[in-house]
């Protein structure tokens, strides 16, 4: 098992290097002089030169690349051009807000998605299945900001059940939870739709297996048959797919945070875009990609744990 984990980690090294290279190239796609783009039209020649110096743009491209790799690999993700804080400081300031939101939504997704998916699989091609499939497809059709906005309109603006701004920096636990409800429900319902779909198809294929028939023939009680023999085996692909969903979840939480005006990674990115803070954007890009790579590794290792047949060739 440890061998498997080490092999998987080794496989991530080339991906990591290539990812850093991709970010390096991407940031240099800016047409023209990045210093001029950042400082605007009114910048003086001296401030442009100073900015180029600061960004290392006056070095040969190969040197820039080596410096970039060295910085990134030693955990120096750069500093924001506007606030002067390092990227890691900026991220750690808002990360609790985003983590709170994503954990709540994954929880909602699992609590509702798993049972609904199992139910739809058991009642395949009957009405619960039909209704469930249409609802989950509808849930997946919403861009996250559209559903967020509709929820905001209906529950916060029309009915006034929830605050329009989805966070309270001060205020007790209850009011914080109250403010978290709508954003978390928005992400959570999309997650529910996703988990339900995956659970349904995974359960359907597991329920068709011979060992289910054998268990049924042995007289295993239906509840035990579905949960112990069925769901436990169906969980393996669900784990992988939910892990792969992580990248989408980040994008969705960015959009949700913008709509509900919550502090978090979304507003951080939006701010960086609006102020053309390219070093912050570059650092955020690397941090996010690192998260995705780490989650992928964990997913693979968990997969290896639950399914002993998985081996890296």
């Amino acid at each position, binding site marked *: 098992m440890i061998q498997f984990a080490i092999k998987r980690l080794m496989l991530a090294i*080339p*991906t990591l290097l*290539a*990812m850093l290279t*991709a970010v390096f190239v*991407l*940031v240099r*796609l*800016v*047409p023209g002089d990045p210093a001029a783009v950042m400082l605007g039209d009114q910048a003086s020649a001296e401030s442009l030169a100073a900015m180029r110096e600061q960004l290392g743009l006056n070095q040969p491209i190969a040197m820039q690349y080596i410096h970039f790799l060295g910085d990134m690999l030693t955990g120096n993700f750069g500093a924001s051009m506007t606030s002067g804080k390092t990227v890691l400081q900026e991220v750690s300031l808002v990360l609790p807000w985003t983590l709170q939101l994503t954990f709540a939504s994954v929880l909602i997704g699992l609590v509702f998605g798993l049972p609904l998916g199992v139910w739809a699989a058991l009642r*395949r*091609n009957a009405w619960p*299945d*039909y209704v469930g*499939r*249409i609802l989950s*497809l*509808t849930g*997946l*059709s*919403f*861009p*996250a*900001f*559209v559903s967020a*906005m*509709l929820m*905001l*309109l209906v529950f916060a*603006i029309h009915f006034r059940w929830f605050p*329009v701004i989805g966070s309270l920096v001060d205020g007790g636990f209850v009011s914080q939870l109250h403010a978290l409800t709508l954003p978390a429900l928005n992400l959570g319902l999309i997650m529910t739709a996703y988990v339900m779909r995956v659970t349904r198809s995974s359960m*359907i294929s597991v329920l*068709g297996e011979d060992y289910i028939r054998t268990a049924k023939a042995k007289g295993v009680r239906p509840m035990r048959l579905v949960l112990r023999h069925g769901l436990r085996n169906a969980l393996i692909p669900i784990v992988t797919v939910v892990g792969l969903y*992580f*990248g*989408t979840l*980040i*994008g*969705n939480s*960015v*959009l949700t945070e*913008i*709509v509900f005006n919550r502090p978090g990674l979304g507003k951080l*990115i*939006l701010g960086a*875009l*609006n102020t053309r803070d390219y070093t912050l*954007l570059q650092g*955020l*890009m690397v941090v*996010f*990609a690192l998260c*995705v*790579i780490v989650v*992928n590794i964990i997913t693979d290792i968990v997969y290896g744990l639950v399914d002993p047949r998985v081996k890296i060739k």
Partner: protein
Amino acid sequence: MTTLTAPLVAKPTTLWHALFQNRLSWIGIGLLVMIVLVALFAPLIAPYDPLQQNIAYRLEPPSAEFWLGTDTYGRDVLSRLIYGTRVSLLVGFVAVMIAMVVGSALGVIAGYVGGMTDRLITGFVDVLLSFPTLLLGLMVAAMLGASLENLIIAIAITEIAPFVRIARAPTIALKQRDFVEAGRSLGYGPGRLMTVHILPNMISEVLVLGALWMATAIRTEASLSFIGLGVPPPAPTWGSMIREGFENILDAWWLTVFPSLAILLTVLALSLLGDALRDANDPKTRSERS
């Protein structure tokens, strides 16, 4: 299970047959035809000029005169919505076509040539997949600058990976088949073998994936426009309409609700169609389609 006797690649007739048996696919096709017609005949359907500002009619709620109301500049929301259909469909379609052509070409080449080329291409795909989709699109669009072409390029880049994957795996299996070997011994070059002998065998899978990813492309377009990285104003797009409407969300609900519904319907129609096509195309699920 009918897996053992089912042919590897569905014949067109059975594919259509299976597709038309699926009730959900009818809804998808119907909606989609309507949306395409709206886009095609936008100048004939739209009651007003989508760019015509009229300060006297600012933020009018829906009425007999302006069915879906007017925005902050007094522009007719319905007309903007109708013209926005063109942009959304165009961006979604072209972006997916680019991703499809580039992705499946890379996939076939990786599978056919193998070795170092294969490792490079799969490495490239792994890198694409290590970025959260929206952030990758956002970053590319932000770096290139806001314009229609750059938006399409940004979305296409986020969607290349799945097409590489779906084309690569069957190529590896197909290149060892007798008919490819026969072509090779007749002296056909790798270019001809890949395009004429291998590619047609997976084209249906690629097209099915195209329908599903066009839904995602339209969603990404709307999201990027909402963030402010879409087609620059005053051109009407659904995402930018929502962005503008969001500033007045407290007193003009119609500015956000109607473009939201338009996005939702289009994405839903494409997903229904893509799902139905996938079920119809896959011999394993065909027996359990609804």
